[in-house]
């Protein structure tokens, strides 16, 4: 790093500052627009509960075979204190019962009511769920198959399926890694606490949507706004003063490590060691070829693409974006030509934290295994792999890198990597790449050391 990284200019270029709120507004509006459309597009039916409220818990599910939903099937739910109720699946295959007290409940599918040609697989017709607190809705899945179902899936199908989930993961990673890359570009700092910002989005999303029962879209907006504020606040209170003190980048990096450690245990302190996942209604899966997806997957991907496109547009076409790229390129020169470097960096921190928070919410909405207090570790390694792969400090490199890493992670198990090694495969590629092309895919070939 050149010492110029720490140069701070006190000048305030007026035109630039005027366009700043416009950009923030633009970004937020873009975030709002798709959310609003969906919020109104999918009204929940009156009788079906799904998330549970303070005094009414909910057990729900959708009866479906691998082909289609099955209406008119009875589900018998028994529970503590003689709780005994029967629910029937509606035209969309959905059923639900409202429960008034926590405890263990057993849901059993009435096999007599299944239509001809369908059957329960194995013992998957009886499921016991534990309602720990009423606000937490529980989804029950029964295994129902048609007679001609066969479990064999061709490798091609698995590959296509993995490519879909790889793209989904890649887009989520891209949201977070663009921020990481922008922070690196403008300040030279490798932020080890960035993945904790992602976890923060997931954890807060869970608390706001599932514990407080706020509408999911409104909840997302609240959480993203709060995450953006944490980014702003961090730079205001920690990073800017440290830059002013002239603290070295290696030292600052260790500060981010301390922050990441503290944040992790803050999450464990408040949420506990359990895995959390934002549970909204039981979305209907659709099937195109071998790919099974639901509305949430699509929404997450669309939101990611829109946000990434917006950031890209802002970077390329707006004054503030040009200023950001100028600061990335050469802070001293940018400062000398009248750009308020501190203001740009502040904006970068704010937007990066917001994007990371959004990525976290979407992650805990669509990724099957949800999020844990220490999920940040796995995510951080993938983010670093993505950012380094694309070229440290290049925003578009981060996008490409994230997509590649997402695909590698999801394709690795199909190609024979067992278990958690799918994460390792991405890191292995990172190490190999450093040997041949240390500046990354889109990085400029320059001396990096």
């Amino acid at each position: 790093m050149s010492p110029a990284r720490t140069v701070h200019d006190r000048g305030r270029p007026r035109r630039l500052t005027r366009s700043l709120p416009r950009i923030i507004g633009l970004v937020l509006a873009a975030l709002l627009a798709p959310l609003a459309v969906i919020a109104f597009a999918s009204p929940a039916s009156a009788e079906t509960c799904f998330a549970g409220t303070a005094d009414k818990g909910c057990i729900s599910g959708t009866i479906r075979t691998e082909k289609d939903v099955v209406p008119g099937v009875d589900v018998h739910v028994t529970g503590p204190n003689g709780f005994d109720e029967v629910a029937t699946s509606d035209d969309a295959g959905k059923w639900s019962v409202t429960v008034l007290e926590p405890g263990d409940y057993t849901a059993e599918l009435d096999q007599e009511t299944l239509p001809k040609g369908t059957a329960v697989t194995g013992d998957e017709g009886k499921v016991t769920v534990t309602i720990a607190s009423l606000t937490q809705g529980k989804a029950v899945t029964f295994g129902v198959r048609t007679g001609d179902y066969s479990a064999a899936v061709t490798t091609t199908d698995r590959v296509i399926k993995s490519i879909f989930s790889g793209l989904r993961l890649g887009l989520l990673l891209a949201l977070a890694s663009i921020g990481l890359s922008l922070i690196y570009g403008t300040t030279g700092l490798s932020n080890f606490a960035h993945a904790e910002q992602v976890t923060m989005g997931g954890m807060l999303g869970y608390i706001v949507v599932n514990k407080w029962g706020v509408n999911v879209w409104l909840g997302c907006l609240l959480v993203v706004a709060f995450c953006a504020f944490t980014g702003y606040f961090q730079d205001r209170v920690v990073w800017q003063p440290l830059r002013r003190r002239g603290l070295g980048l290696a030292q600052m990096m260790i500060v981010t490590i301390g922050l990441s450690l503290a944040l992790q245990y803050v999450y464990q302190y408040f949420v506990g060691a359990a895995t959390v996942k934002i549970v909204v209604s039981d979305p209907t899966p659709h099937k195109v070829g071998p790919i099974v997806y639901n509305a949430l997957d699509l929404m997450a991907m669309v939101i990611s693409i829109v946000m990434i496109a917006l950031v890209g547009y802002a970077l390329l076409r707006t004054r503030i974006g040009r200023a950001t790229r100028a600061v990335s390129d050469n802070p001293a020169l940018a400062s000398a030509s009248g750009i308020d470097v501190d203001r740009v960096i502040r904006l970068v921190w704010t937007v990066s934290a917001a994007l990371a928070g959004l990525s976290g919410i979407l992650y805990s909405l669509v990724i099957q295994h949800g999020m844990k207090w220490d999920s940040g570790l796995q995510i951080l390694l993938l983010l670093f792999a993505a950012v380094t792969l694309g070229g440290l400090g290049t925003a578009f490199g981060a996008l490409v890198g994230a997509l590649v890493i997402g695909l590698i992670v999801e394709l690795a198990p199909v190609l024979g990597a067992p278990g958690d090694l799918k994460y390792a495969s991405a890191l292995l590629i990172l190490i190999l790449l450093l040997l041949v092309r240390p500046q990354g895919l889109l990085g400029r070939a320059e001396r990096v050391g």
Partner: protein
Amino acid sequence: MSTVSESIPTPDQAQAGDTAAGVYDPNDPQGPPPQRRAMIAAAIFIGYFVVILLVAKFAPGTVGVIARGMLRESLSAQTAAVAIAIIGLNVHFGYTGLLNMGQSGFMLLGAYGFSISIWKGLPMPVGILVGFLAAFVFALILGVPTLKLRGDYLAIVTISAAEILRYVGRLAKLENFTGAAQGIPGSQYRDPFVNLSFFGDGTFDAGGWLPNLQSTGVNGWWVRFVAWLLVALCCVIVFLLARSPWGRLLRGIREDEDAIRSLGKNVFAIKMQALVIGGLFGALGGMVYILPSSMQPDAMGRNLTFFCWTALLLGGAATVFGPVIGAILFFALRVFIQGTAGAIVPDSIMNLSQTAQFAWICVGITLMLLVIFRPQGILGDKRELRFNV
């Protein structure tokens, strides 16, 4: 890369400066000179143990319980093991300026090499060699792609590689080889070491002053004695290395790599040697770490590396005794915070598991504050920690 042309503070120069100045000024931002530093280290050691021994022996109630916990933790073999790993990290970061974020990976390899070899029936010396060899190869693999690049590449690659190792060790398919996520029980590899003991049977508590533990046993005085003996040995090795011409080269690389390169030295090779040597210390630490417990891959994850960093910066990087003081104080302070929080804050606000998490939160914040306000830690020299990578 710091372009500020500061003189490289070799011990010789520092000593010359001190004799010229006559007396040491405690307010000098440059920190104490080396001889003085050793005396401060000794004073802290003796002072800490005298206070904690007296409180543990005589204080009634909760204060006594907390002090006894701190004493137990300060003497524990695992604290010694982490101290050895930190001595290795000190060679990386303190002397050479390498940002190794994967010290737990070196520990894991040392521990796996040691425990698997003995489990599969090889003699103990071979197990130790296998552990060292694994760490050696690991250092080479990490160093080749990264040591020519900027420092944060090494950080990213080491933290990634350490995690890969842990994932591989946890693989269910390797259960017959690594014991998968459950790891290897201590009884499978501990016996050759315990059998070496000449401490005899029975228990020992020095007339009630020390915790009452078995003289030999699984986690008794024997393993503690050997562990702290190894710590002392490692300190001597690092002391000799650091004052050798090679040690001066390390510090030269830390301060200004280009200057050393222009002197005709092979910077890449010297960095690689430092990475290997620090990694071997890490492997030794890993072997000691599993002796009193069992070989569990998850015990040596990312967080252990971060604890090593916090303890190193607490004690003082680029000093001989900093890692040892840092390790002892780090683990004792954690017990102190957890015990105090448990005793003072009522259960309704903070339950038992939350006090543990609270202590970890404090660790993270301590790490941040240390780097910001006192990068030289307790013993270090501020001048030596101003470098950038």
